[in-house]
Structure formats: C-alpha cells, structure tokens
C-alpha cells in the first residue's frame, strides 16, 4: 500500500484535485460512450418494430377495403 489512510489516498499527496479530475472526466466520457452505444441499438430495434406495425396496419386497412 502506498497510502496509510483513506483520506491520504484521496489527497494523493496534494495532487488530489488533478488526479481525481482526470479520472472523473475519463469515467464520465466512457459512460457517455456506453449510453450512446446501447441507446443506438434500442433505437434501431424500436424503428424496425414501428415499421413492422405500420406495415401490418396498412395491410389490415387494405383487407377491410376489399370487403366493402
């Protein structure tokens, strides 16, 4: 262990602000990347599903027309 206490660990020998700023912003940008990636997949699935439903509705409407 390079540190003897947790508060010493947080202080990072006086460089705490810079070290945790670097780590914090890096973590945030990676989390942003993950959210964007997962969100894109969901969006594609939703779009395809909506298109399929619309196609079904159109088909159903056409069938109705045919019976009149």
């Amino acid at each position, binding site marked *: 262990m*390079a540190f003897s206490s947790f508060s010493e660990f947080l202080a*990072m020998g006086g460089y705490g602000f*810079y070290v945790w700023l670097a780590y914090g912003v*890096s973590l945030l940008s990676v989390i942003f*990347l993950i959210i964007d990636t997962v969100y894109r997949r969901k969006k594609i699935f939703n779009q395809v599903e909506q298109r399929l439903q619309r196609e079904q509705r159109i088909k159903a409407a056409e069938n109705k027309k045919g019976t009149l």
Partner: protein
Amino acid sequence: MWKWLHPYAKSEKSYALSGKLMPWFLVTAVITFVVGMVWGLAFAPADYQQGDSFRIIYIHVPAAMMAMAAYSTMAIAAFIALVWQIRLAEMTVAATAPIGAVYTFIALFTGAAWGKPMWGAWWVWDARLTSELILLFVYLGIIALYNAFSDKVLAGRAASILTLVGVINLPIIHFSVVWWNTLHQGATITKFDKPSMDTAMLYPLLIMIISFAAFLGFMSLYRFRNEILHRESHRPWVISLVQQSSTQINKRG
C-alpha cells in the same frame, strides 16, 4: 485455403460471431480494469519527482495508445473497404471512430490535468499535444462526414477516404517527441530499448493498456453490430431478430 473466411463477409455471420466474442472482451476489460486501477492507484509507489500526480499515467497512456491503435484498425479497414469494396469494412470504420474520439479526448484531458501541476500549464502548443489535438479533429471529421450522408454506401466510402488521408498523422504523433523539442517526455514503453520505468509502476500500466484494448474491442463489436442492424434493417434476418426480442419483452411484461 481461405474459403472458411468467406461466410464472414456476410453480415449475418459477422453479427453472430461478434456477439459470441463480445462477452470475452467485456470480461477481460472489467477484470483488468479493477486489478489495474487498484494496483495503480493504491499500491504502486509514488514517483520520486512527480509524487502521486504520476498516477494519471494509468489512464493517460492507455487512452493515447489505444486511440492510435483504433485509428490504425480503421485505416486497415478503410483500405480493405476501398480496394475490395467490402461493406463490413466500411462499417468497422464507422463503428470504431467514436471510440477512438473518446479515447483521444481522454488522453488530451488527462494530459492537461497532469500538465497543470507538473509543467504549470493546462495546455502548451507543443508538437505532441498539437498533433494529438489534430487526431481528435480528424476523428470528429470522420464521424461528421459519415453522418452527413443519408446514403450509407456513399457515407462509408467518403469516411474511408478521409480515414486514409488522416493516417499521415499517426507517425507524426509517435515521433513528435523525437523530431521536435517538446515539453512532453519521450517514449517509455514503445521503443527498442528496455522500458525506462520500474516494474512496480510498469505492471499496472501494462494491465491498464490491456483493459483499454479489451474495452475498445468490446465497444467496436457492439457498435459494429449496430451498424449492421441499421444498414440491414429491411432484411428478413434482422426483422425476425426484432420480432424475437419484442415477444421476449412482452412475455416479461
């Protein structure tokens, strides 16, 4: 001889293979991340000159290295895409660019947060820093160009060409610390000599490099699959995939 490779030019096969590989990359990334972070932040000894501020190295160097590795991957894929007209290679370029951009941003930002206490400035217009900033702009340019076309065949080709043009920046970044007098220090690991770093500091760094590499692999596969789904959304196999997932959600609800 290479016939076994042919089916993987089909997007459906590539989609399935990527899905199988993803968990391995993710597990590797998470384990090495936890080990590397605990070791680097808490157990590695403080630097005799820089004190504990040197601990920024454990994200700064892996991010910078993998930002360049991501670009090399994209360049090879772009070459394949342009020469052999393989659409999956274009998708690799588009899938990897945002990850490379985030890694480059991390390298630049952590460098600034390290430079302030050590050099006394957040930013200097020095060869290494400037060429790295250009890398970020090239990444953003590739992403913007790819998104600028609604015709994805055209978009893929344009992005591939820009990727190949931007390759010129890679050797400039790597050798910038040799060719010019810069504030940035020279290479510590990527040189022919022995690494000029004590093993107690070096091992966690190598572990973190593996972590960033594995995460890059995981994320590129994930985004590569997104690209395939997006481009092939009218194909029957994607439609049946979507129908399967929606019935699963309905069952759960």
